[in-house]
């Protein structure tokens, strides 16, 4: 047996629980109202361009990304702007959002709604980047970094590899998996478009070995396309982390504090590749996405095609959740997702899944003293010492935290997942990271 590729240090293997992997993507009925938060991307929030009472169509621009790292925002529905007000979003904070009352489903005329797949890439490199920017694309793996920014390779750097993230290493989540099974042609065309934009001739799709069907389906299509290949990977969390995926696929290590382009790589999610296809070939902005709804007590674990701004409640009800047994509702997967304070929160561009944990799964175990077993060090994919970072963060020794590379932490949670003493390592490290980043900023000014 040949051993599968994976990243070198650390990693864990939580129970996969991919209940919804066989559930075909289902289009969710239109809601009566959507709430579209203005800050859906990493970086600066979009600037609103509509006002109360305006009529909008599906795909019409409603807010623009004006800063360097920002993204456009489009109306996911047709109807009337009710108000621009604050709403509780997935982070639990009240943030500005556009409330739209849904009337009919009238799409902007410029969007090509025909079903046929368009293979020929007509746009030039610059036009592609411009189109991706105007369509408001962000990384759909969860980090929501504006896609067009990633495609603008800095002066003096050269991209050699486009790496496509089809790993989906988070337990429970299956949205990328379904996407690869149901939209493989489109994904590959999206990849070809990205390759053209980046001027690279090699693209590698990394997929974990628990998705055999996706591996064989994409490999089959790749045969027709030069330079695109599928790399099956060993199942190990957090392989979907950018740095881990680069290590696993092309065996290069992104230096501490640097971006993937430093080692000639650009990483994009499979969902983003699909969105690129739709934006460039069909002129369709990003206003809907695939969301997995899952959990042990969900009657029908599902993958929904959902308009941005739909309330989480709508998805939960459609999938048959049982509110009386639910203890925690998570935006994302169990390892890195955020627990929601309100199920009224809207689906945003970065929502890859909604996971419901039962009340008996929602409590943390009693915290015991650190027994210095070193398991947190063993599983840390960044080669850090989580026990030490947590302790110095807890006790306010931020100079040691900084010197121990706390900012390299990718917050994957492997340490806390593993800790036999159930210590809240990542809670402390997260606080320490924030503090250290602040100290560094102050020092610079």
């Amino acid at each position, binding site marked *: 047996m040949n051993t599968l590729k994976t990243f070198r*240090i650390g990693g*864990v293997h*939580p*129970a996969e629980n991919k209940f919804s992997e066989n559930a075909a993507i289902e289009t969710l009925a239109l809601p009566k109202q959507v709430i579209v938060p203005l800050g859906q991307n990493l970086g600066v929030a979009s600037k609103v361009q509509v006002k109360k009472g305006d009529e909008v169509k599906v795909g019409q621009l409603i807010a623009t990304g004006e800063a360097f790292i920002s993204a456009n925002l489009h109306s996911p529905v047709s109807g009337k702007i009710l108000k621009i007000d604050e709403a509780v979003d997935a982070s*639990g904070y009240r943030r500005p959002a556009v409330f739209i009352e849904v009337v009919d489903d009238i799409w902007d005329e410029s969007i090509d709604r025909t079903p046929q797949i368009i293979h020929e890439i007509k746009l030039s490199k610059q036009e592609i980047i411009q189109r991706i920017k105007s369509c408001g694309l962000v990384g759909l793996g969860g980090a929501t970094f504006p896609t067009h920014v990633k495609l603008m390779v800095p002066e003096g750097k050269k991209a050699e590899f486009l790496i496509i993230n089809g790993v989906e290493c988070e*337990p429970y989540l299956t949205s990328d998996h379904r996407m690869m099974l149901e939209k493989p042609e489109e994904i590959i065309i999206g990849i070809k478009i990205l390759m053209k934009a980046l001027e690279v001739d090699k693209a590698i799709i990394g997929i974990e070995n628990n998705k055999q069907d996706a591996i064989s389906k994409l490999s089959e299509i790749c045969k027709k396309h030069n330079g695109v290949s599928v790399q099956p990977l060993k199942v190990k969390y957090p392989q979907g982390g950018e*740095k881990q995926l680069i*290590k696993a696929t092309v065996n290069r*290590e992104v*230096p*501490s504090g640097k971006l993937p382009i430093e080692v000639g790589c650009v990483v994009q999610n499979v969902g983003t590749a699909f969105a690129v296809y739709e934006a460039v070939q069909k002129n369709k902005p990003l206003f809907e996405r695939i969301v997995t709804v899952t959990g042990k007590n969900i009657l029908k674990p599902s993958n929904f095609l959902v308009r941005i701004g739909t309330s989480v409640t709508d998805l939960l009800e459609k999938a048959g959740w049982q*509110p009386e047994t*639910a*203890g*925690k*509702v*998570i935006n*994302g997967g*169990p*390892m*890195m*997702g*955020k*627990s*929601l*304070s*309100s*199920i009224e929160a809207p689906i945003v561009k970065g929502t890859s899944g909604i996971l419901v*944990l039962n*009340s008996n*799964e929602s409590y*943390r*175990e009693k915290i*015991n*003293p*650190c*027994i*210095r*077993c*070193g398991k947190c*060090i*063993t599983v*840390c*994919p*960044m*080669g*850090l*010492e989580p*026990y030490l970072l947590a302790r110095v963060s807890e006790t306010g020794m931020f100079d040691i935290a900084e010197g121990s*590379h706390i900012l*390299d932490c990718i917050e994957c*949670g492997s340490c*806390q*997942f*593993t800790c*036999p*003493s*159930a210590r809240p390592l*990542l809670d402390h490290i*997260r606080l320490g990271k924030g503090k250290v980043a602040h100290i560094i900023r102050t020092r610079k000014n």
Partner: protein
Amino acid sequence: MNKLTLSGSPHVHSEMSVKSVMWGVVIALAPAFLVSLWYFGISALFITAVAIISCVLIEFLIQKYLLKEEPSISDGSAVVTGLLLAFNVPSSLPWWEMVIGSLVAIGIAKMSFGGLGKNIFNPALVGRVFLLISFPVDMTSWPVPAQNFFSLDAITGPTALGVLSEGIDAGKTVSELATILPDYSNMFIGQIGGSLGEVSAIALLIGGFYMLIRKIITWHIPVSYIGTVVIFTGIMWLIDPARYIDPVFHILAGGLLLGAIYMATDMVSSPMTYKGMIIYGVGCGVMTVLIRVWGAYPEGVSFAILIMNAVTPLINKGFKPVLFGNK
């Protein structure tokens, strides 16, 4: 609907807990205990029970009345200490000496440092060494196996390492001593004199593999420790086989397997990175051989591990994990 719980990620946790680790060690020690019961009879059960009960009770009393905190005896760590302490003494040890040993192990070596996770030295070994120094005769009178099962008064004899050490000191060669040393098959199954739990190599190895599979220990410390002893004693044996006995004897005799698999691997007092663990294991091996061959005591495992326990914080500082992106 219930109120929703809010917390930071991760929202799931592995099966492993302090409890599962400690009780896993207890299960791993079961085969060796059964062998002891077979060879040393009811006295092995008695002294083990005294050790476990004293350790647990002392921890409970200290936590409840001295530290006034919630007792955490159910985590099983005091049971492991008691069990290991019993494994490190002759089954003929008077019960009250065992109570004193437990008091030192739990009271001094563990609780006075702050309890679970804070101790520098392996508590069971501190208890053992305290007993060895305080009651040298009782601690080195080894019951001979396979007497009457229900007898609490066993006939005592020397251990294999003791016979070797005395013989060499008296100027005899290894081959002259061969007739009075136990043969290796007896040493492998455990039909020799020695501490309660250290005699059976096979039983200790079975427990060791169990802990490896359960991921309670990793191979690094036992392999580097035993490997170092084999290489070190092997070189000396090749140089002068008349004066130095072969490495197989060193593995099977005394407490090397018990120490390398169960005591040196104690999570609290051993290093945290793989590299550190290997350095530590090599250190334990070198110390053990130095004491066994040139030291005043015939056995050096306890002292070797305690010395390396003291070095552990330095090893943790000196052997950090390799940072991602550094090459």
